[in-house]
């Protein structure tokens, strides 16, 4: 993204590249900061599920840094980046769903009637917060859209 911004030839392209650079910078910060935040709040546990956001950080940071600073055109970079962003979207949705279900399991089991489900939506594990990864994935996909 940075090389594309530096090489932008006209005002419209420069505006597009500025948009992409800012969004990719936010994405980069998110991939760097969320694992720190999750570590601080004690998300790193013995279970595999609790490690998923940390595992996603590895390709997430790598491809985001590569696309941001180096190259966004090579097929392997685009494929890896886009696949990671889709994984991030998927992880966010699944994370939100399982946070909700596990909140219910801690109380009276999974039951989908309104008052109970909403009470556990507000439960120990934040449902909406998990979907930050979905937001990040969509940001990444939008940033690389038609960017060659």
């Amino acid at each position, binding site marked *: 993204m940075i090389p594309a911004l530096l090489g932008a030839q006209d005002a419209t392209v420069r505006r597009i590249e500025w948009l992409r650079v*800012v969004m990719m910078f936010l994405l980069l910060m998110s991939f760097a900061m969320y694992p720190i935040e999750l570590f601080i709040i004690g998300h790193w546990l013995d279970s595999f599920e609790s490690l998923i956001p940390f595992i996603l950080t590895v390709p997430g940071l790598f491809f985001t840094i590569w696309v941001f600073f180096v190259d966004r055109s090579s097929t392997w970079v685009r494929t890896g980046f886009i696949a990671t962003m889709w994984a991030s979207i998927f992880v966010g949705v699944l994370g939100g769903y399982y946070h909700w279900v596990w909140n219910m399991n801690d109380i009276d089991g999974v039951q989908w009637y309104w008052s109970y489900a909403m009470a556990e939506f507000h439960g120990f594990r934040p449902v909406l917060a998990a979907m930050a990864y979905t937001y990040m994935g969509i940001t990444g996909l939008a940033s690389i859209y038609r960017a060659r």
Partner: protein
Amino acid sequence: MFERWMNAETENQKVLTFLQLFFLLFTAFGFFYFGVEHWVIDHWLDSFPSRIPFYAAVIGLPLTLAMFFTTHKAVRWPYTIFMAITIGVGLAGALFHLVYNAGDAGVSLFTISGIFEAFTDPFRPVLAALAHVNIGAVGLVVGLTLED
């Protein structure tokens, strides 16, 4: 913004207005989402600072929604300025969280160990407050990249 998108003539203008529209949607969704999230986590208390994220949502969401239908300077400039303010709100929120955590823990922020202890207190997440910086930055870059 809708009109700019529909009136875009060149390929670059189409990409630019599409990305702006997309990220404007993010900004609108962010104000709505963070409003809900803060309510879910019981952020609405008696104190004025605890209500700031809600005031940000109440002002930011209508301004952002208005931008979908008109980018006249009477809307565009209040919107753009408010996005800059939202960035400030996020930074101030992170600082407030840090100061309040330090107060609760009885540590000084003028020592490294005190800062670390206040930063890692999960009760008021310091980095999470920066979500408003994210939403403000996304909104701001849309406002600043609009073509006259």
